[in-house]
């Protein structure tokens, strides 16, 4: 009896390469997303790592081998396709076959570049290990580049009028601030009342005007607003009975 396949038999396979260290599945994802170049991945080394890690006695050994063989074959195909040079087509639509002389010239140029690359590698290796001062100076204001487009955009934002919010969803205003202030005073004669009780049954607009009236009364010193914690329940207390 074999273990049921989860579809991710290689989930526990991790690789240690110069260019990448981590789960094999992530390596495939990075390659497919073009975040890691396929040239950088030594496929032979990858196969060696898998061969070293496989357990032929494991219940899902066949699944793992199959999945790895499939993905490794895809990597080989991808690498071979990527090796195809992206040459510009000839103007007449047909790519002219290069003569041996042209090929020799291109190969000679490439040989020089290869040698130059080797020289660079040695230079880089010799210069590695130099760490600069950790004191990074802030950029000089005079050298900051200011884009005209950005200045125009900012100026337009600063000087443009704000768009007034739509109020069509609000109903007609049928009560004044003074009327609501009077109602609040009357309601508080029997003792402190919470804002929630005070506005129960009111629509949003009336509730907002009641809040403005309560603030106005608090500013006048007629009412005290008590809120023990931020965004907590708001309670109103009358300070002057005859006000």
């Amino acid at each position, binding site marked *: 009896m074999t273990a049921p396949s989860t579809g991710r038999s290689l989930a526990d396979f991790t690789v240690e390469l*110069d*260019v990448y260290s981590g789960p094999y599945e992530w390596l495939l994802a990075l390659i497919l997303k*073009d975040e890691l*170049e396929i*040239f*950088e991945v030594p496929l032979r080394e990858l196969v060696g790592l898998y061969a070293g890690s496989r357990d032929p006695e494991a219940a899902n050994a066949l699944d793992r081998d199959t999945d790895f063989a499939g993905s490794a074959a895809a990597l080989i195909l991808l690498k071979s396709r*990527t*090796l*195809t*040079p*992206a*040459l*510009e087509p000839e103007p007449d639509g047909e790519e002219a076959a290069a003569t*041996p*002389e042209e*090929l*020799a010239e*291109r*190969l*000679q*140029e*490439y*040989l*020089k*570049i*290869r*040698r*130059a*690359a*080797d*020289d*660079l*590698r040695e*230079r*880089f*290796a*010799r*210069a*590695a*290990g*130099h*760490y*600069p*001062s*950790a*004191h*990074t*100076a802030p950029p000089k204001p005079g050298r900051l580049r200011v884009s005209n487009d950005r200045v125009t955009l900012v100026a337009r934002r600063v000087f443009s009028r704000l768009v007034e919010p739509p109020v069509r969803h609000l109903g007609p205003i049928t009560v004044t601030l003074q009327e609501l202030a009077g109602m609040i005073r009357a309601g508080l004669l029997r003792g402190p009342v919470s804002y929630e009780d005070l506005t129960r049954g009111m629509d949003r607009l009336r509730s907002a005007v009641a809040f403005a009236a309560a603030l106005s009364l608090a500013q006048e010193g007629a009412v005290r607003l008590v809120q023990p914690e931020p965004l907590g329940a708001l309670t109103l207390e009358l300070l002057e009975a005859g006000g």
Partner: protein
Amino acid sequence: MNPAPEHLVEAVLLVSARPVRLGDLASAAGLSEGETTRALANLSDRYSPEASGIVLRAVAGGHFLSTNPACSGAVERFREEARPAPLSGAAHEVLACVLYLGPMTRGAISRVRGVNSDAVVRNLLERGLLAEVGSDTEAPGSPALLSVTDDFLAAADANSRGDFPPLDSLVSEEELARVRERLTAPEAAPAEREG
């Protein structure tokens, strides 16, 4: 007491994480270029790899202080950082193309190497070793022209492009002749191959 020219130059170099050009150094220290050059010469003796954990380098057209590579292990342990992974062979080839044949477009790099090099170029741009310096206005779409940066020169321990050996000197005439001969020599006759 006025500080000595060496002290002024040394102080400015200490706080700069990038190479400082002679003119900027002289201007900041309030010295003439001659005085600054003499101060740098004195400092280079003091900050030689044999004499100090800090070395004075003349790279990317300027001077700057950096740690002695012999002490890099201690620095890396202190910073709890590993040394950046070395560049791949493909990356070195792209840099060599741009250094010797550039400024050039991505397409031109790919043509020289014979393979698509866009991903390598992107990586080198992110590392700051290549930069877009303009565009090829005569090519369709005006593709960006790439060139090597001051960071590249610093990483290669070079003061300028002139510090690199000429491209033609890197491969001998005999090698080039062998390549040409191998590609242009007429194919051997079938009888000759069988024999």
